[in-house]
């Protein structure tokens, strides 16, 4: 290869290398982004499952402990608020409130031996507890994925590609300490 040939091919080779690098980085980002997306949909599946279980639970408890209105209503209300929220940050707070309400409902149920012996109730309790575990693990995986994604996105030189192709920043799914106490606002 002569000198002149080399001079004509060199830019092409350099461009090709850059192109391949961009494609690889871009694909890497897409893989991570999809992982975050999947993780979120997994949380969503479990949350929906819990929403579906709650009406059954409320009906069952009502049959035995109808006058425990405050606990029942707290659960219904927390569920309604949680369903209607779309963004990640507020949802985390609402879901925590729902978990708390369910927990107090189960605590109340301790006082009703008949209810505790009800097979339907026991099955629902196991299902909800297990769903709650699953939510907690799905959240753990989601947060790990988000961390990996955000890390990669912000690091040089990947951040250049991420800005060019407009990869969004994702939020963690967790209520920080201040947010947890937010409902008791004092003026």
């Amino acid at each position: 290869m002569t000198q002149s040939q080399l001079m004509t091919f060199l830019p092409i080779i350099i461009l090709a290398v850059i192109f391949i690098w961009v494609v690889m980085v871009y694909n890497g980002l897409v893989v991570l982004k999809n992982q975050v997306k999947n993780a979120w949909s997994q949380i969503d599946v479990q949350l929906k499952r819990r929403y579906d279980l709650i009406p059954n639970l409320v009906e069952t408890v009502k049959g035995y402990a109808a006058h425990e209105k405050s606990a029942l209503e707290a659960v219904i209300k927390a569920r309604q608020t949680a369903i209607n929220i779309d963004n990640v940050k507020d949802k985390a707070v609402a879901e925590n409130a729902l978990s708390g309400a369910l927990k107090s409902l189960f605590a109340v149920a301790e006082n009703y031996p008949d209810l505790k012996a009800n097979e339907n109730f026991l099955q629902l309790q196991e299902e909800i507890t297990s769903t709650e575990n699953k939510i907690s693990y799905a959240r753990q995986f989601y947060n790990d994925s988000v961390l990996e994604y955000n890390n990669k996105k912000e690091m040089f030189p990947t951040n250049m590609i991420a800005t060019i192709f407009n990869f969004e920043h994702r939020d963690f799914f967790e209520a920080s300490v201040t947010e947890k106490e937010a409902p008791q606002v004092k003026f």
Partner: protein
Amino acid sequence: MWHQIAINKRNSCILLTLMLLVLLVLGAAFGMLISYYFPIEMARSADFQQMMLHSAQDGIIVAFVVWCILLLCALTNGKNAILALNQAYKLPEYSHLVLENVVEEMSIAAGLPKPPEIYVIDTAMPNAFATGLNPKKAAIAVTTGLLVELDRDELQAVVAHEIAHIVNRDTMYMIFAGVMIGTIVFLSELGLRFMRNGFRSKRCRGGGKGDLIILVVCLFLMILAPILAQLLYFSISQRREYLADACAVQYTRYPQGLATALAKISGSLYMFRDADKITSAMYIVHPLDYEKRYKSTYSMFGNAFSTHPPTEKRIKILEKMTGADFNAYNEAFVKVSKFGKRPLLKKEFLYGVKPMEIQNPKEKKEKENPVPSAMGIAAAAAGVAVLSEAEKAHKLAKEKVERKRSAQNIVLKANNYIEKECSCGTKFKFPEEYEGQTIRCPHCKQNILV
């Protein structure tokens, strides 16, 4: 996480290529050996070196074909064969809710696309393994002994360890490597057998000194190849066990759970005789050798030929962990290692790992969903009452009986036992093939129509 999977895949590829090389060399030796003892009349007249070269080529082709056939079998039916070999059967639906939930929870924590199928092995020895070509078609097998001995948190840790094997693609590697070793052992056995027969029938042709050298080299290769392949295999599998432990801790955020589970499993006096040698590498703790299982030899060769690192060391590492992330595992690993302070994971693994806290599952729940104080008192009085030692022991024993019963349920359900309830409240189960019309209730002694 993707990073780690990619590195694992690369390592597997390098190792499998090396094994393939060993296989092809063995094939060449095999071909030469065969033609040495069974020379075709036409070839006899031809140039000796030429003939050897040709037969070496043929041998390589034979080795390749055998490998392809075995590989095809493994790809189409590998998982089922392994499960059948270990006498595992599928967990009947709804027969053990805790196990089903634990597997689902852990596959969510690991981000698997779908939870693996669950299989059960009937044996009192607590143990577990995972298999499958890819995460979508994976399976986990646990013994009934495991379900009896371990509590929920420990079971969760073991399942997390197995799921880590699936996520890290160790199960895939295991199948490919198994096929490779199988082919190598098969060919070398065949070659050695031919050789013995050859000597007996005295058909060996008188050759020069060169022939003898070839013969000796071939013999040497025949004996060496299987050992070499296994060494290659072992060189990586110990490291993978540690890595799976580290991942399991990351999923559960609770190293003590895995530590006590490992202690219980390796401390068990039961043996699992049906586990065969080939598949024993897949279990969480080696199922056959009681001595090897727990006591670490720490000698040069004692460990080089073992698929599993000494359980004692694995437990020590887990107990020394101060966090739940890879960094913490790495630090604990270096602390516990006697020889050589080489860390388990290279820096590339630990890029951007965030520190994770250890969370005891019982405390974690309290922390995440605090009971409102008014309701809390009742719950606290009911659940968290302080127990004396005797009461604690009694409670543990009671839990174990409960677990034994639910494990027994799986076996009965798998064998299609029919459940019946007596009017006195006693539930009992009887086999499907029972031919009588009535059964006597063991409690109230009245006869019940079947």
